[in-house]
């Protein structure tokens, strides 16, 4: 029997970061209460007790802006409407400036057992460039508070390929991040998204070129692996056994239901998305969705997602395309883009860096 994951999009932020294009609006307590009501209505609507729900993920925005009471209301409803397993992974994305030890303790009590903390960098100059509201000192403190509050599964977000970033400054950030009591790191290459303040020549000129980014990325993989954080996806690293179970759903074509404005779902063979509009979400009985894919997880999509994972694509799972893929393997091995053990094709760090082209070459 398939299991299920639930994603809750919490669209509030204190301040929008300059690079971010996820949907969020300014936080107001009154609106957040209406929002929580709407989430609960939707949880009831999507109620599914047949399948086991084993991951819950509060993403944003800034989910840590919700009060522990609000988080508890939502989690209680999930327990009501879904068959939530006792060892479910329940993650809350957290901004270091929105929590303290007390709030973290309260959150822990609601059932949240994993935190994803937006550290981004341990260099204040880089943090202010990114438009973050916290300092490196605060980031370090919040991790230790979280640990003390009972979180033993903490993840940190880090950003690489920042302006003037050097091997030394990258190493400095990674050294400090990995010396904290954390189990997981998501490390993203900064990308200037359309429509964000970073989408301008002035910023783009300051960013390292692709060859430099490649060096930085490979150096990061080396450093993290040497610290015991194994790469398991293009941008994700974890101590053994601490891979994000929820995020792995995305890459394994497992089902998840997304609730909240801009949330995406993949459920029962269909992909659908909710509009990027908080008012609509609050005012609708049930969130309005748009089907983005009537037949999800076909060969191309499945392979493309699978190949983001270090474990790669098991060719037994795509028997019709096995011959086509096998023919292309030698050239990719020769260039150091993939590994092949006779069963699965998996990308190397060099291959991850070129994953768009490698995947295109493999599956078309």
């Amino acid at each position: 029997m398939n299991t299920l994951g639930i994603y809750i999009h919490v669209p509030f932020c204190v301040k929008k970061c300059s690079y971010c294009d996820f949907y969020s609006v300014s936080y107001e307590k009154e609106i957040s209460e209406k929002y929580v009501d709407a989430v609960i209505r939707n949880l009831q609507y999507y109620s599914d007790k047949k399948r086991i729900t084993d991951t819950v993920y509060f993403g944003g925005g800034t989910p840590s802006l919700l009060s522990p009471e609000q988080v508890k209301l939502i989690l209680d409803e999930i327990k009501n409407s879904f068959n939530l397993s006792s060892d479910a992974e329940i993650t809350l994305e957290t901004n270091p400036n929105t929590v303290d030890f007390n709030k973290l303790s309260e959150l822990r009590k609601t059932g949240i057992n994993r935190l994803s903390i937006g550290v981004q960098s341990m260099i204040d100059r880089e943090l202010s460039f990114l438009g973050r509201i916290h300092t490196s000192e605060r980031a370090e403190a919040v991790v230790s508070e979280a640990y003390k509050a009972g979180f033993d599964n903490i993840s940190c977000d880090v950003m690489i390929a920042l302006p003037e970033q050097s091997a030394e400054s990258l190493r400095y950030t990674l050294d400090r991040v990995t010396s904290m009591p954390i189990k997981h790191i998501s490390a993203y290459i900064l990308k200037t998204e359309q429509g964000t303040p970073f989408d301008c020549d002035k910023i783009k000129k300051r960013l390292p070129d692709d060859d430099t980014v490649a060096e930085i990325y490979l150096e990061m993989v080396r450093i993290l692996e040497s610290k015991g954080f194994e790469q398991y996806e293009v941008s994700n690293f974890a101590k053994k056994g601490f891979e994000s179970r929820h995020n792995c759903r995305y890459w394994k074509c497992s089902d998840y239901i997304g609730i909240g404005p801009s949330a995406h779902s993949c459920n029962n063979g269909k992909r659908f998305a909710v509009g990027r509009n908080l008012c609509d979400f609050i005012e609708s009985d049930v969130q309005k969705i748009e089907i983005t894919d009537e037949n999800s997880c076909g060969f191309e999509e499945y392979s493309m997602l699978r190949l983001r994972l270090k474990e790669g694509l098991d060719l037994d799972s795509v028997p019709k395309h096995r011959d086509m893929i096998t023919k292309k393997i030698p050239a990719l091995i020769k260039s150091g883009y993939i590994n092949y053990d006779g069963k699965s094709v998996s990308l190397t760090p060099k291959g991850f860096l070129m994953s768009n082209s490698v995947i295109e070459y493999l599956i078309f």
Partner: protein
Amino acid sequence: MANQKIRNFCIIAHIDHGKSTLADRILEKTETVAIRDMEDQLLDNMDIERERGITIKARAVRLKYTAQDGEDYIFNLIDTPGHVDFNYEVSRSLVACEGAILVVDASQGIEAQTLANTYLAIEHDLEVVPVVNKIDLPSADPERVCSEVENVIGIPAMDAPKISAKMGTNIEEVLERIVKDIPAPQGDTEKPLKALIFDSYYDSYKGVIIYVRIKEGRVKVGDNIRLMATGAVFNVVEAGFMDASNLVNNGSLEAGEVGYIAASIKSIGDTQVGDTVTNNDNPCDEALPGYRKVNPMVFSGIYPADGAKYGDLREALEKLQLNDASLSFEPETSVALGFGFRCGFLGLLHMEIIQERLEREYNLDLITTAPSVIYKVTLTSGEVQYIDNPTNFPDPALIQTAEEPMVKADILAPSEFVGNIMELCQDRRGIFKDMQYLDDTRVNLHYELPLNEIVYDFFDVLKSRTRGYASFDYEMLGYVPSKLVKLDILLNGDIVDALSFIIHTDKAYGRARKIAEKLKENIPRQLFEVPIQAAIGGKVIARETVKAMRKDVLAKCYGGDITRKKKLLEKQKEGKKRMRQLGTVEVPQEAFMSVLKLDS
């Protein structure tokens, strides 16, 4: 006896010296066109002609002029193509005339093409009437130009009409000269029909329309005519002349006249320019002299950028050929470019015009290979091969001698550029013959040049090295033995057939390096490293590498939103169609084009 009131003439002029403007003024003065109907430069009726200010196809117009002596005269103005590529067509047009008006720009003087065409006219015993145009320009120096005409061409010119076609100044004087100086046609109307074809075009209602000059006899509707070179026989449906915009069918034509014949002719291939038309039932003894079949000189592969447009390309070429018998094409395939055609052209301009018409009038996106000339190769077996496609160049071990076509070139330019021109010609393996001062400031340089050295970009480079002042003309000289090799370009170890070309040994290395560099610039970095090699036989003489791309990744796939990733996949699929996939190498169209435009 032919009508003594007829004057058959053409206008010789360099591009932009005012041929079409003068023609328009003559039409206007003879009231062939009501002034309100005048469209600027009426005789040129193709878009490209107008834009480039050149005349591609000859046309003939009949005009009526009442001279100062009170008599009415019939003028047949035969418009000739001005460019060397159409040299043969020019010569046939000239044979249809008794005289030529030589238009020379009052500030620029004689240019290479003018010279070549004037000599051609003199060779055909035409009466040349010099006219100095653009006297309204501040820089005009008519006296200097007149003495240049006398010195260089050797015809009296001091009393040449000095006109401004643009302003309409002194046009009357030109018309009077036509009456007085140009002889009336000769010919016996009672003899068997003998007529010269000097042009033809395809009309979708009437079939091929042939333009003729009747030399002897007469032709009328209902006659059976025979085209002597091709032997084809047709029944005349219409015979008449052209006014400024229409065919006027007046039922017959006779010796001395210029006009058209329509005879339900389906294929323009039957109506070769230069052929003689006679009466099938009462033929003349022998054809007019000088007929030859026009052979293409320059060849190039033309491919649709989108392989699916192959059928459209063939249709377009067929349509163009209806009006242009000198265009030849045969299907060819290229590993690199897929299905296309090897096309033969009279010369470079002809090639450019065809390519441009295909793109503009038929909306086709084309990839063309480097132009090639015809090489003559004698094999060790004694067999002689003519090679117009580099891909077919035989293995060097089998070649006894290889020969390439040479041309005799005239380059006219201000003397300050002589050094630059000599350097260029030297670089293009030119053999200097002599140099002649036209006046104190202008020279005519005579060179012998291999045709394959001028088919790429010679004219462009000549223009840029002389700040646009040089003019250039050439005629074929014949074949000479040469040290020729085939240069192949390899991408990732595989020969790209569309990029192969034949070149002189001494120039192979330099060209190879340049091409490799150009390709490196124009092939984007991609998944795999792309070695670029240039090789003769198996020997690599130049090498470059397009390094593999390092980063091409969507780092985030967050919150389960994979729409962006899917969009990217779709885009990649789409982009793949526009690239030429050669093995594992993706080559954009620009890369092929860039190789054709090597700057010197």
